[in-house]
Structures are given as C-alpha cells and as structure tokens.
C-alpha cells in the first residue's frame, strides 16, 4: 500500500463493465512530509475520498478482489482504501 494524495478525478462514460459505477481518482504518491514521489496513477475510490485528501492506496490486484467482492476476474489493480488523518514520522 502506498501513501498518496488525491489530485483529481477522471470521467469516463464508456468503460469496461467491471468499472461501471466506480469513481476513478488520480492519486500522487507522496512521502511522509507530503512531497510528491514519482508519477501519479489512477485508482478506484472505496472511501469517498476527494481532491487534496491524503489516502492509502492498495496497488495489488488480489487484495482489491478480496475487498471488492466482485468475483475472481475483476480487472482493477489499484484501490483507495483509507483516508489518512495523521502521519507520525
């Protein structure tokens, strides 16, 4: 899992059936101080996160399938699984 900041969202009407009704967020990996690390990527929202929120993002498909409970052939790879209140480092 990675610590990220939500920087926006992506609107896509035509989607793979597995993505129907899901919200796609753009997340930027960050360090403990909040500085950007690497490039942003997309993740499905599971916790009603919004732009500016610091979040925990799961980036492993098997964990995503366990959480989403939508069967074994779910083509989703990254999922926002938590909104961070505080980081002590």
């Amino acid at each position, binding site marked *: 899992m990675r610590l990220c900041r939500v*920087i*926006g*969202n*992506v*609107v*896509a*009407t*035509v*989607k*793979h059936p*597995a*993505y129907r009704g899901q919200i*796609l967020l*753009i997340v*930027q*990996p960050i360090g403990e101080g909040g500085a*950007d*690390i*690497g*490039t*942003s*990527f*997309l*993740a*499905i929202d599971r916790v009603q996160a919004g*732009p*500016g929120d610091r979040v925990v*993002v799961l*980036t492993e*498909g098997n964990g995503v399938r366990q959480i989403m409970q939508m069967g074994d*052939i*779910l*083509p*989703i*790879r*990254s999922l926002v699984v938590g909104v961070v209140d505080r980081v002590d480092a």
Partner: protein
Amino acid sequence: MYLGRITGTVVATRKADGMEGQKLLLVQPVDDQLRENGPLQVAVDTVQSGPGDLVVLVGSREAALACQPHFVPVDAAIVGIVDQVDAPEREVDKTGKTGKAGNAGKAGKAGKA
C-alpha cells in the same frame, strides 16, 4: 491503472495462442497533465476505442482479466474512454502538447500501478 493516448493500431496476423481476435492498439502513456510518460505500449482494447482517444489502461495480470475470454496473454488493456480529466492542482492541458514541467516532470521511475 494509468492514462494513455491512442496513437495507432497494430495488426498482427500470427499471434500466440489465446490472443486470436483481440484488437491491438498502440498507446502512449501520459501523466496527469497529459504529457508523454514512458515508452509506447501495445494494448488490447475492450471498449471500442480508436486512435486519438484518451483512455484508461490497466496493466499486468488485471489486463488479462479485462479481456473476454479472460486470461488472454497480454500485459496492458484499455478499460475506459476518458471524457474529462479534472485535476484542480495540476494545469491539465487537453492537447497534451504544451504542458509545463511541474513536479511530475522530474519524476523518477514509478511502477505502473
């Protein structure tokens, strides 16, 4: 999952078993400001997209799961056609050509999630 711009189509008559009937497209991965990000990729299409479209891609094993029937031997699949990218803190340039280098510009290597 990441964004990309479709730049062309790929035709391959002789393919590995399991890849028959899959539509292949050439895709340029882009970042949150729609600037080029990494080398061109060949991806399987699942949403009837075409050259010029900005799309959502999924990589690795999940790409195989996006195909019908699943477990096609591919490592990138197009799973959505983007209508709009909304990133208030970034200046998204819809043409993807004149984006100014920000933090993401000097980004190191980051795994495609």
